[in-house]
């Protein structure tokens, strides 16, 4: 028997997604190893990876040195064996989690190189609200599973160097020093690859540094310069009387409502909050949660997105600048911006003075005529003089907003909402907080907005019934979650059906 345990291959698994260059990374490793006196074998399961799926590569390296290997070739594996993988490279955090889930990463053996950037899964992206998984849990799982964890946002480094993530990961592999080759040998492999060498070398260097020094500390965003206008100063002073965490949101709410309409509107916002603050003090548990959540939701409710608001936001200089940055406009390039707008009769009526708006909605042929003209959406070029001025004129209707139909509807809605909060707070503080939060269902435009309104109304109708239950707050939270589970409302219907027998039993 000639088996000697130390004569084993170096095993490397790469988990990536289609189009990230996982194959290039594997090829670099093979080239690096073959030049460095190793026999290399690589294989992959690309599947339908190109079409955005998860994919994996597996590489084994075996040293050529030693008399025996000159005579016979080693038998190299084609699949990673859990417990026997020396290096695992994951190009994304959830894929790293998948490697841990599959048992490829083990604390006795594995150096785990992880890019912490997120490429959101379909499930996360299609949620009606926030469906994101917990990155910190994933990263902690990686830390616990690995012998040594090297992590950092490699995607960000790739973008900063104008290259691809595979080059950064290759750099991190070199920087981890887990392979016995020198840095120059790694770089030589990139040079031999011959494609995008300059960028790849820069990205490689960034990855190398990241692996050597650990992840760059997360820079806290610089606090926005306090630039409170004179007219808002007294309001802000009032807001400062509230304790955190409410204070931050109240201040943001003042800014938002003033920006939305004017200082008087912000004053109204602050006035509305007073009763809630009072209720919070009297019936609260000291958390200030009721005031915080109401302050947040009230600001959003008061700054509902009507045509005037949308037009105003679209033409601001700051918005033009944001678009320029987002599309990465280069020097010498010219940017044109086109908006996809679809105002319907409803939105037009909403903008009109309340009486006129109501008339239009209930009218016969005028409504039909207008409907015909607004059947199709329009593409408006904000970067042209004509398109810009059209939006500018819509935005100029801001002073008339207080008289508009939508304004009346929204204020009535918010007053009703606030009344409910205040009515419940003395008896059930937690439920009042949940009512405050339930306003979040009302968001979006057209169908989305109507759907949200309906679901909100359903829950509010059920409020007396919910309030009777011993777990009232939790019930409302559960129903709100169900209301945000799907477009069709199936989950909400099911959740409501589920709670019926209980309430009947209680009766």
């Amino acid at each position, binding site marked *: *028997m*000639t*088996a*000697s345990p130390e004569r*084993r291959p170096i095993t490397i698994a790469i988990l990536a997604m289609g189009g990230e260059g996982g194959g290039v990374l594997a090829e670099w490793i093979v080239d690096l190893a073959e030049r460095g006196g190793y026999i290399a*074998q690589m*294989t*992959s*399961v*690309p599947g*339908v990876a190109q079409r955005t*799926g998860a*994919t994996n590569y597996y590489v084994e390296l075996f040293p050529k040195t030693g008399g*025996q290997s000159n005579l*016979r070739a080693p*038998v190299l*594996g*084609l699949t990673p064996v*859990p*417990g026997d993988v020396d290096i695992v490279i994951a190009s994304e955090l959830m894929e790293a*989690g998948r490697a*841990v889930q599959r048992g490829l990463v*083990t*604390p006795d053996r594995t150096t785990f190189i992880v890019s912490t950037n997120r490429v959101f*899964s*379909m499930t996360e*992206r*299609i949620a*009606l*609200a*926030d469906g994101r*998984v*917990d990155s910190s*849990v994933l990263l902690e*799982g*990686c830390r*616990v*599973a690995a012998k040594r964890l090297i992590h950092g946002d490699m995607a960000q480094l790739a973008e900063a160097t104008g290259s691809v993530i595979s080059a950064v990961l290759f750099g991190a592999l070199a920087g981890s020093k887990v392979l016995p080759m020198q840095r120059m040998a790694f770089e030589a492999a990139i040079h031999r690859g011959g494609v995008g060498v300059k960028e790849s070398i820069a990205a490689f260097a960034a990855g190398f540094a990241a692996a050597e020094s650990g992840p760059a500390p997360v820079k806290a965003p610089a606090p926005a310069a306090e630039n409170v*206008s004179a*007219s808002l100063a007294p309001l802000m002073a009032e807001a400062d009387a509230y304790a955190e965490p409410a204070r*931050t*949101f109240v201040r*943001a*709410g003042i800014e938002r409502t003033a920006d939305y309409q004017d200082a008087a509107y912000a004053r109204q916002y602050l006035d509305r909050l007073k009763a809630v603050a009072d209720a919070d003090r009297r019936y609260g548990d000291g958390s200030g949660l009721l005031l915080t959540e109401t302050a947040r939701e009230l600001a*959003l409710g008061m700054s509902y*997105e009507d045509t005037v608001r949308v037009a105003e936001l679209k033409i*601001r*200089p700051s918005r033009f600048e944001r678009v320029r940055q987002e599309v990465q406009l280069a020097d010498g390039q*010219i*940017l*044109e*911006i*086109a908006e*996809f707008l679809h105002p319907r009769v409803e939105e037009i009526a909403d903008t009109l003075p309340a009486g006129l708006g109501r008339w239009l909605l209930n009218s016969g042929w005028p409504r039909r005529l207008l409907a015909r003209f607004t059947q199709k959406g329009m593409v408006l070029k904000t*970067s042209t003089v004509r398109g*810009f*001025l059209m939006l500018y004129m819509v935005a100029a209707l801001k002073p008339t907003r207080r008289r508009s139909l939508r304004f009346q509807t929204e204020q009535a809605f918010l007053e009703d909402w606030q009344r409910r909060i205040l009515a419940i707070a003395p008896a059930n503080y937690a439920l009042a907080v949940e009512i405050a939060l339930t306003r*979040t269902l009302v*968001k979006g435009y*057209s169908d989305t907005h109507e759907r949200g309104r309906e679901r909100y109304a359903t829950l509010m109708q059920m409020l007396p019934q919910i309030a009777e239950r011993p777990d009232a707050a939790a019930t409302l939270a559960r129903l709100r979650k169900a209301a945000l589970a799907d477009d069709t409302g199936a989950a909400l219907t099911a959740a409501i059906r589920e709670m019926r027998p209980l309430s009947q039993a209680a009766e």
Partner: protein
Amino acid sequence: MAERSFKEEVQKLKLGEGEEFHGEGILAVTKALLQSGVSYVAGYQGAPISHLMDVLADASEILEGLGVHFENSASEATAAATLAASVNYPLRGAITFKSTVGTNVASDALANLASGGVTGGALIIIGEDYGEGSSIMQERVHAFAMKSQMWLLDPRPNLPSIVRAVETAFELSEVSNTPVMMMMRIRACHVYGRFTTKANKRPEFGLTDALENPRRDLSRIAMPPMTYVHEKDKWEKRWPAAVKYVEDQRLNEFFDGEANDIGIVVQGGLYNSTIRALMLNGLADAFGESKVPLYVMNVTYPLVDKEFVRFCAGKKAILIVEEGQPDYIEQAVNTILRRADIQTRIHGKDMLPMAGEYTGAVVRAGVAKFIEKTRPDLLPAALPAAEVTPLKQREVTAAKAVDSQVHGRPPSFCTGCPERPIFAAMKLVERELGSHHVSADIGCHLFSIFPPFNVGATTMGYGLGAAGASALNVRAGKRAIAMMGDGGFWHNGLTSGVGNAVFNKSDNVLIIVDNGYSAATGGQDIPSSFHANASRGTQNSIEKAVRGVGVTWAKTINHTYDVALMRDTLKEALTTKEPGPKVIIAHSECMLNKQRRIRPLLRKAAQQGQRVVRERFGVDADTCTGDHSCIRLSGCPSLTIAPNPDPLRREPVTKVINSCVGCGLCGEVSHAAVLCPSFYRASLITNPTGWDKFKARLRAAVIGFFQRRIERKLAAA
């Protein structure tokens, strides 16, 4: 033109005697074919053998130089029938496709071929699409070998073994007058390795010789009474001839080991995993030196009785490592040993799982179980298997923690895919007319069955989308909708689906996705590809073809991204009073291939100073309310989410990342579904003209004037 170019790699096919080849397994097979003096090669693309087809397509010059004819077959049935050239002539031919789906399609021709038998070597290279990364139902090609009596090679997954298998396959085929299949698993197809090459061989007898000197032999035609003779011939002559060749040439391999009272029988393709399993159990070294004797079956059909008898002599037990189910080999070995009255205990599926891929971990566990049962003394003493070490505990804790945070990532449509708007339109029609029965097909469009679209009830095979709806052909308040790709259409859908619907007076709706390529298999050309191809006849119209078989209601939509048009056309098809099948041809180029085609051109144009406009979409975070209905109607990879910059909001906003190709769907959907005003389209003009610059300056002046006013107001507020 396929999406991956092998123009550089094919140079390796020219390597001569005694040189070293480095590359992928499937490329090595191609080289082995040329070394064997093959006259013709045909096949149908599909993972994992697509690259074999792509390599050959890119190697046309080399093939022509050697007098080798290459065809992209219309289907696997065509490919199999191509081997008819080897029935009467001493021509070596090879075909390739993925299995078992391809073998299913090919089996009519293969059964005829195997009945009459061949004169020239006939090789069928099978990409066994089984296990992780597979895209088809999990079955074994082994059953086809048994039913038609064709020989099945399953070589060890290293390049020298694979190349040798190809070379011997032709000889085996010729000495036994039987077609030979060689299967390669996914990882073996993609394995990177090396082997020493031989010079390419020009076929001695060419296709020209066959055409100019035709021959026939009635005894080879599959028609009674010859078929009765064929069946006897298979058993009496061809089988023994094959067995003799396998034995004489030592195609199967025996490896001795000191523990010679037990042994392991393994399919060649699983040899490496088995050695690794033994190594991790401390029973072999990295060079394959094993304590346990091994019998490696590089030929898994026919089984060689004598070799089994020899291997089992003096052994109390053997383990058969046979992937997949049913356990054909294990059953056969039981019969062989029973007939020979040998008492060796046979283990196999009692120690290894019946179903699923035999990965390293699976074989490792199975081998450990076998050794523990038969020779526990061989296992290292200090293996407290049951005890949970702190390290193991860490592993379990970590896996448990991440479990709830890891989502599946099924394949989906690419960025800017022209098929996405078809399904977006279907979702919009669903809102108006309710849901319909949707019969899906094979191709990228099958990704519709996953979120966000969740469309499609069944898939019955390539090109069989319309056929899959044929029973649902009665008067009802709703019609069935069938999907079909252009690849499936030319493969068989034109007759099995469209012709059938016309003939049976179906009222159903068929949507044919015409993206110009066999896109899901790697972007190969098909008869309706948009671009001219020097060696293939492309640019044939699908609409003409369907009208040709009798469809009267046929509409081609030349810009699938027009969601409103797509929606209205589908609505019309579902409601029109016109009888007969309603066919919508949704025609827009596969974005993956389009980008591959135009990106280099645009880059070059920009470098040369020409005016280039790039469009992409964006979302204004301050008007996005985080409902994500736009994503639910699209699912585009470049349409994702990002943390909400608004401190008052908690839901992530929608964000378009820079990989956006500006296909326009986001805008169309937000219009057609009346979503929200947050989307914008940005046009980035590189190398603007003087007129562009003049306009830009003028606009900047006017817009700037008003924007300064806005800023003053904001500051004053």
